[in-house]
Every structure is written in structure tokens, then in C-alpha cells.
């Protein structure tokens, strides 16, 4: 244990030298990132309604939830399974405070009052859950957050006064102002894209801000950080608060997307799906969850047809997901991104370029991070 820590300390000066470069805008010199951004912006010209909403907007929404998990797991070392629960709570709150088909439950507030209320309540909910989870460490976090998520699922199933039991709340109203129906395919896609981009850059910025660096220090060695005068638990709870806010945003978008919310959307299986998305994509970089979400959504949408075409039972979609997840966990500590990086490294082996070294370092850091849990 202590050996590993000392090894990491000797690595640190190089990181400090590179710091000035790291401070700049993320990926600003990367042509691939510009290409992806451009394609995302002109997507409505390429894709029709089904692909735009069912594939890309859904990907971005799921990616946002997984992003909040990635922030906690990658930078804070806390694998929280309740991120979907927070999103679901926020979605329920939008439905309860806003306008919906269940007039006996919904309070009928306008969306610009209901949404901030939902965001605030969901953030408080997630922060309280986080404050509970940080009382224990590492692997216990998974158990406690899973228990919270499952308790919320069973509660929504049983409670009829607020959550309307297992039928949930239907026909939730979506915003409609300035003469634009914001739930129409193209405006909604741009809303989702804007929120996703904001959250992506916010996570990227925080990871390099003093708070994010302290959080990564807490992840790697909480005792040393405590000795340096950092309040370890306060950093962790603050990380939960931020991640809860991101998840709450995703929840608002999700309820606008489907126009309904029911216990099925906050089930334990769905909570675990978010973990799968984040892990498959890779939990060391903010872009990972979005890649994972794209893979997941594509599989979920097309696996049935694909399996039937191969002459197999189309209902075995979850088996495919599970096996794919197992394969990723077995062979790559950093999801698809890790596989891609190791492939790139093999392509350039022996070149010894500075970016190659940086990749190797980050890969090493991630494997240590995941080992410490």
C-alpha cells in the first residue's frame, strides 16, 4: 500500500510541469473533438425524428446520468448506484409540482417554478444520501447507495399519495413558450445537447479546478489529505451535491422526453444500467459515459432485430448486455476508452512521444484508482 503511494508521489512533479497545458480548454487542439461537436450541432439535418430523439437525445440523457456517476467514481472514488434514483426523484418532482394528467396529485405550477424546485429537492435528496454514504468507505458505498435506490423504487410502488403507485404519473406537460413547443423534436434535441455540453464542460472544468484536484487527492489517499488539512468528508459530500445536480438535470430532461414517470423507470435494474453505461464507456474521462450510453442505446434499440436476423432469440438483449459488460470488466480497467488507448499505444509503440507517455500515466492512474475503489 505505502509503496504504491510513494511511487505516485514521484510521478507528481511531471504532472505539475504539464499543469499549465492541462489548464487550457479541453481537447481544443483535437480535430476529432471538433468534428464530433460539429456533427452533433448539425444532427437535425442528418437524422430524422426517430434517430434524433430515440437514439441521440436518449443517449445524451442517459450519458448525463452516467456522467454524474463518472464524476463520483472517477474523481471521488465513490461508486454510487443511486444516480438514477436522484434523476428519477427529480423527474417525479417535475411531475408532482408541474402540470400532468393526474390532476389530483400535480400542483399545476408553471414549468419555470416546478423545474428549479425539482432540481433543488433532488439535489438535497442526493446530498443527504451522499452524506449517509460517506459515513462508510469504498465498497460499502455501493451497498448503501444500492439499498437507497431499491428503497426508493419500492416506496414509489407503494405510495399512492405522492407517487401514484405503480402506474406513475402520466401526460406530464412540457414547456411551451416564445411560440415554440420545446418538446418538438428539434428544439428538444438542442435543449438536451446544450445541457449535456454544459455539464460535460463543467465536469471537465471542475476536474482541473482546486476542488476537483483536492477530490482526486481524497480518492487516492484520504488520510494524507486529512493530514494536509483538507476536510475529507466535506469534499465527498460536495462531490455528491454536484453530481446530484447533474443527475437532477438529466431527470428533468427524461420526464420531458417520455412525458411520464413510473416506478419502472427507477427500478434497481435501471440503476445498474447506469453503472454499466459508465463502466463500459470508461470512468476516467467525462466523455466515457456518453460513449457508453451510445453503445447501450444502440444495443437496446437494435439488438432485438440483430439477434433475430442471426436466427437467435431476440429477447436475450439483457444477456448480451451482461456478457458485454463482463467482457469489458475482464479485459479493460477503463472501458471502451481504455481499449482504444491501449490500441493506439500499440500502434505507436516505441515512438515514445510525450502524449503517449501521458496516456500511459493516465492509464496507470486509472487502474490504481479502480483498485482502491
Amino acid at each position, binding site marked *: 500500500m505505502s509503496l504504491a503511494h510513494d511511487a505516485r508521489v514521484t510521478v507528481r512533479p511531471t504532472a505539475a510541469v504539464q499543469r499549465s497545458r492541462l489548464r487550457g480548454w479541453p481537447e481544443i487542439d483535437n480535430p476529432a473533438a471538433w468534428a464530433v461537436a460539429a456533427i452533433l450541432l448539425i444532427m437535425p439535418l442528418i437524422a430524422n425524428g426517430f434517430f434524433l430523439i430515440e437514439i441521440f437525445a436518449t443517449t445524451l440523457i442517459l450519458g448525463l446520468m452516467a456522467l454524474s456517476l463518472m464524476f463520483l467514481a472517477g474523481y471521488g472514488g465513490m*461508486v454510487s448506484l443511486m444516480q438514477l434514483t436522484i434523476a428519477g426523484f427529480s423527474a417525479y418532482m417535475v411531475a408532482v409540482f408541474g402540470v400532468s394528467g393526474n390532476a389530483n396529485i400535480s400542483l399545476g405550477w408553471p414549468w419555470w417554478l416546478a423545474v428549479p424546485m425539482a432540481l433543488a429537492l433532488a439535489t438535497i435528496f442526493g446530498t443527504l444520501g451522499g452524506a449517509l454514504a460517506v459515513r462508510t468507505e469504498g465498497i460499502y458505498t455501493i*451497498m448503501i447507495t*444500492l*439499498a437507497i435506490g*431499491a428503497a426508493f423504487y419500492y416506496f414509489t410502488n*407503494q405510495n399512492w399519495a405522492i407517487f401514484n403507485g405503480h402506474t406513475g404519473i402520466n401526460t406530464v406537460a412540457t414547456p411551451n413558450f416564445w411560440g415554440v413547443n420545446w418538446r418538438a423534436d428539434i428544439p428538444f434535441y438542442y435543449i438536451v445537447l446544450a445541457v449535456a455540453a454544459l455539464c460535460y464542460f463543467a465536469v471537465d472544468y471542475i476536474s482541473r479546478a482546486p476542488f476537483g484536484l483536492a477530490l482526486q487527492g481524497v480518492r487516492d489517499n484520504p488520510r494524507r489529505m486529512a493530514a494536509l488539512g483538507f476536510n475529507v468528508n466535506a469534499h465527498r459530500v460536495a462531490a455528491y451535491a454536484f453530481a446530484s445536480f447533474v443527475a437532477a438535470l438529466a431527470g428533468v430532461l427524461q420526464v420531458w422526453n417520455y412525458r411520464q414517470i413510473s416506478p419502472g423507470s427507477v427500478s434497481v435494474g435501471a440503476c445498474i444500467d447506469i453503472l454499466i453505461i459508465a463502466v463500459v464507456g470508461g470512468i476516467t474521462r467525462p466523455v466515457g459515459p456518453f460513449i457508453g450510453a451510445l453503445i447501450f442505446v444502440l444495443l437496446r434499440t437494435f439488438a432485438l432485430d440483430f439477434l433475430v436476423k442471426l436466427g437467435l432469440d431476440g429477447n436475450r438483449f439483457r*444477456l448480451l448486455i451482461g456478457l458485454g*459488460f463482463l467482457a469489458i470488466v475482464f479485459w479493460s480497467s477503463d472501458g471502451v476508452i481504455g481499449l482504444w488507448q491501449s490500441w493506439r499505444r500499440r500502434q505507436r509503440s516505441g515512438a515514445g512521444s510525450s502524449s503517449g507517455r501521458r496516456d500511459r500515466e493516465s492509464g496507470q492512474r486509472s487502474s490504481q484508482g479502480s483498485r482502491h475503489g
Partner: protein
Amino acid sequence: MSRFVERHPAWALIVVIAIAVALWLIFAVWPQGLEDAVGRKRVFLNALFNGITLGGLYFLVASGFTLIFGLMRNVNLAHGSLYLFGGYVGYAISAATGSWVLSFVVAFILTALVGVLLQVIVFRRMEGQDLRQTMVTIGLSIVFADLMLWACGGDFYQVQTPNWLIGPVELPLVTAVKSSGEPVYLRYPLVRLVIFAASVVIGVAMWLALNRTRIGMIIRAGVDDRDMLAATGVRIQLVFVVVFALGAGLAGVAGVVGGTFQSLSPGEDIRFLLASLVVVIVGGMGSIPGAALGALIIGLAEQLGSVYIPTYAIVVTFLIMVLVLAIRPQGLLARR
């Protein structure tokens, strides 16, 4: 015990009063005022017994979970799948042969075999990487759940209770007194009592095996310090396999029990995984007595809650967990 009384006299007094009240509630004939306020005594006693027997079932599931966690630091989130697998195996055997007892034996052996395979093929490769192991168990639980859905479908199954266990038995507990002065005794399903007795026997046997035998000593040493135990020359991998087999086998047995007095269907795996998570969080991870206490508390809370505050039964369970985490984050009976 006496040290606890000396240290916390106020708590000891509260515990004694609580036990006295509970005993009075169970044995005394309730006065009319109490029946008006709370409900019939028969309802209360039934909920109490259901809670205790459910606690026995939870103990069977959670003890394997906590044993595996305590020794190998492996949070086996596929434990619920092992439970459901054992249940399906038990159903198949009892439907094919008609023997209830045989279904337990076969379910234990088969789930223990699955456990051995998991430990040898999967978990041995990633020893010491807690998070990765947990991820793998999540993946496995998804795969198992889908395979079982494939094989058994989405129907409900119930293991047939043997003839000699069907029917209620009269317990020497008075529920009410008729106007003629004749007491009415509580009637309770025999099979539930037998299953509860069996889980107590299994619990005591596990306690004895852990505290009075050589292999138990090795396991306890492994729970305390795995590396030091390996350094003294114990073949630790063999111990891991044995413990994993035992823990998985217990989950399988619990599956048959659950299939007998509840039912088996997809989704039960997650329900029992959650139950064992909450039980070990409340009782203390890695502690067998903790699992017993936690199972009793959660079982009682669930059943009494579902009778007296039906909408919020699950919240009571959850509040207990929150309370324990707030007061004793390591669990009620954990040493660390």
C-alpha cells in the same frame, strides 16, 4: 452482559423495559381498551410470528452473504441470483421426485457447485480488487437473471409443501377469551415454524462450527487478517473455496425455503439481494450474530410495518438502516 449494564445503565433499563413490554404483549390477554386502540391480538401475534419466520429466511440468505464478504471482501451482488437458482432447482427436484427434503440437499449441492466455479474461475483472478469483483458480480447477476428467465419463464412457482407439514398448529398463546370464559389459542402454519426452527439450528451450527472447530478458527483468523493467515502456511485458496461454497449453498437452501412459503419469480433475486444488503448493513458486515440480529429486526419491521402502517412499510426498513448508519456506521454487532 454485566459490563454492558455497568457502562450504559440507562440503555440497559430501556432494553429491559422493552423486553418486558414485548413479553406482556405476547402472553397476556389484551384488555379491551388496547384492542380498540391497536387492533385484535391475533393480528399482532400473526404479524409477529410472520416477522420472526421471515427473519429466519433473511438470516439464511444474509449469513452466506456476510460470510463471503467477511472473509474475501467480496460484495457478491450475484447472491440474489444464487438464491433464485436454488429455489428453481428445489422446485424442479420436488416436482420431479416429490421429496421436499431431497430438494434441499440437491439445491445446496448445486448452488455450492456454482459458488465453487465462480470462486475458482472468476474471483481468484482478481483477488484484492474489490471494485472489479463487485462489477463482475453485477454482470453475473444480469447474465444469471436472463438465463433463468430464459429457462424458467416469467411464471410464479411454489415449492409443494409436504403433507406432514400442511395445516396449522395450535400454539399455547391466548389470543382472546370467549364470552363463555374459554380461551382461544393462536393457530399458526406448522411449516413456517419448522422452517424457522431449521434456520435457528443452521445458525447455531454455523456459530458452533466457526467458534469451536479448527476450520472455523481458520476462517475467523482469515476474517481478521487474511495476509497473516496465508503467511502461517494455511492454504488460503482452499479456505476461500470452502467458504464460498458454503455461502452459496446457504443461499440455495434459502431459495427452497423462500419458494415454499412465498413464491419464486424473476425479480425475487433483487428483492432478496436488497434484503441481505440491508440486513448486513444493519447487523454489521462479516458478522454472523450481526446477520441474525439484523435479519430479525428487518423481518419484524417489514411484517409489523405492513400490518400497522401499510404504505410506509419499506420506509421503516430504510429508516432503520439510516438510523444504524448514523449511530453505528459499522453495523450493530461489527467489531470494527
